């Protein structure tokens, strides 16, 4: 069953990811990205990260991507125009990417020690309780630092988005 689920959602996420890159309209890309995130959430569930799966949907799907969609709608961003600049990226990008995928594939398949098979339910570490416990004990300092980071981000966003920047 988990194999079926993995195959389905892996394919969905790949299709959506291709869509993100290939669609010309930002909003299509955004929606495709939501699809990637949703299918990734299912994969997280398969890997025993139930809390993160839900957080993924809430934070990415519900907050970050809504912000994206909101901005796209607000700016009424249309389809992209083609541009002759950045020829270097256009030429070198694809070979580099293919090299990257090949390298990673080789590393994962060839170099890395054998990895276990994924069975749903064999690792149920990622409950809210355990994550919370770790977050508020061992990772308390990073957690607090991240809170401050968010505060700064909020202030920064507010300052940036003001009508007049004095």
């Amino acid at each position, binding site marked *: 069953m988990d194999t079926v689920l993995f195959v389905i959602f892996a394919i969905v996420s790949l299709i959506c990811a291709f869509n993100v890159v290939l669609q010309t309209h930002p909003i299509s890309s955004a929606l495709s990205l939501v699809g990637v995130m949703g299918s990734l959430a299912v994969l997280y569930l398969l890997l025993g990260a139930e809390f993160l799966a839900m957080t993924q949907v809430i934070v990415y799907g519900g907050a970050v991507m809504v912000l994206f969609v909101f901005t796209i709608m607000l700016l009424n961003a249309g389809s992209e125009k083609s541009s002759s*600049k*950045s020829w*270097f*990226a256009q030429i*070198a*990008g694809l070979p*580099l*990417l293919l*090299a*990257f995928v090949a*390298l*990673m594939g080789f*590393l994962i398949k060839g*170099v890395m020690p054998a990895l276990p098979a994924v069975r749903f339910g064999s690792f149920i570490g990622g409950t809210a309780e355990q994550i919370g416990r770790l977050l508020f004990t061992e990772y308390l300092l990073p957690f607090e630092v991240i809170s401050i980071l968010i505060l700064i981000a909020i202030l920064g966003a507010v300052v940036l988005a003001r009508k007049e920047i004095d």
Partner: protein
Amino acid sequence: MTLWLIPFFPLLGFLINGLFGKRLSKPAVSLFAVGSVALSFIYVLILLSKLYPLTTPYTEHDFTWIHSGFLQVGFDLTVDRLTALMLMIVTGVGLLIHTYATGYMQHEEGYARFFSYFNLFMFFMLVLVLASNLLVLFVGWEGVGLCSYLLVGFYYKEKFASDAANKAFIVNRIGDFGFLLGIFLVVMTFRTLDFGQIASAVSSMPVETNAGILTAITLLLFAGATGKSAQIPLYVWLPDAMAGPTPVSALIHAATMVTAGVYMVARTAFLYNHSTIAMSVVAVIGLFTAVLAATIGVAQNDIKRVFAYSTVSQLGYMFLGLGLGAYSAGMFHVMTHAFFKALLFLGAGSVIHGLGGEQDLRHMGGLRKSMPITFVTLGIASLAISGFPFLSGFYSKDAILSAAYEHAPWMFWIGALTAGLTAFYVFRAFFLTFFGTYRGHHHPHESPLSMTFPLIVLAILSAIGGFFSVPHLLAPLFPLSTGPENITPMIISASFGILGILIAYVFYVANPALAETVRVRAGGLYTLVLNKYYVDEIYAAFIVRPLEVLSRYGLWKAVDVGLIDGAVVDGGGRLVRSVGGLLRQLQSGSIRNYATWVMAGSLIVIFVLGLVGGSVR
């Protein structure tokens, strides 16, 4: 027992007057300024009465200041009998001079500024005195130097004042450079700066008869002392420092700051005791300074300059005492000198005040009727400095000269001769001021009570201060000499002093024409002395000028403009430009190109880490 409160009160006064002084009325400024010092004085009294008899030092650790490797420096304050003596002098005389200054500065611009500097000086001086390690002492040391600079240049609109301030500061820098090197050497040698720890470390070391590390340390520290306490060769700043207001001269350049060098040497006596060479150097420099300054003082016409040279001379005496190992005698002279020299300056200030700013002796005369209190008090001070029997200077000077007599008779004879010279030129100034006929134009008047009251108090102290036996007080720190009391040097030095007074009386009261004859006879010698042996000119020609030339043509034109600007800065710029010209081809402004480069770079990293690193592992 909170020792930090002692310097804290003046600091508070400084902050209040410095920050809000412009908005406060003059009485309020005086209240804060004098009140803070008074509080400090009262607190010192209470503290010392509680700590009595204080045979062992009382140390207080306020906070750890520097903690770096082996070096641990705390902001530590300590009180022992030496400190107690200095605390009494500084706060007591300081209080009197503060009171005096409220009258003296009444009509001056920058009243609050003056008192804020004055309080700041008190703060740093107290830190210096209370310091328990060399670094804290150095803080106070530099702090009083700063205040001295600020106060000498108090009339900063006058060129001579700012020049004098610069001179004082720069000359002191030379000494402080040595002092700082000495501190570094101490750190290297003892790995601590705390006096107590250094003392215990030193006690196990042998006395150096040849040049060694202790000699180096002590001589470098003494270099600092020659700067601060105006000894040969760095004494030149002190006479010029008289450009500041007279209370400044009295407090900083007579009673307290200039004795900091003496205090420092006494404080680090345990080091000097281990170096015979350094001791001899201190003694000889002290002696020669005393003589040199005294001879210059004979020919000066500015009343404050006369007293300034006498200060240099008396400081020389103190160092003579220290160098002979008679630390308590030196400190004794510090105390009595603080009384009578402060009094001399304050009296001179009173005269100057009464004459509306006139400082030239040639325009004074016959003031004893119009300024009776000043006349009497200044007379007592002059007698005291001349070593007139049973006044304070008699005892302290005798203590030093006795030590010299035991140690090396030639030093004693020169010292005694100098005592006579001192008596002569001080009384020359005194007679020129108060006897004869008035030669000025301004209408003289007596000073207000706020000025005369400190004069009277200081006069009493100058008179009886000698009965307060400092050597016995400091006995726990510096053992008394056990030899039999020898009365000969006392009689000789006292008679030299009285002889000096008599000669002065003959020259300037009984037969003024004689002085003129002698001056004409002396001719070249007089000119030489009048021009202070041309020391300033010699310094200018042999040190300042070459330095200037070297700086201008060597360092500025060649090194700075040619090498640094031309080769390093411009050349670096050209190099960066040419390399940048190549690299700017990469700077296309296109984020996607940058990302491609990042991508390529990360690929290489992954390749290396993943394949090479993996296979090696």
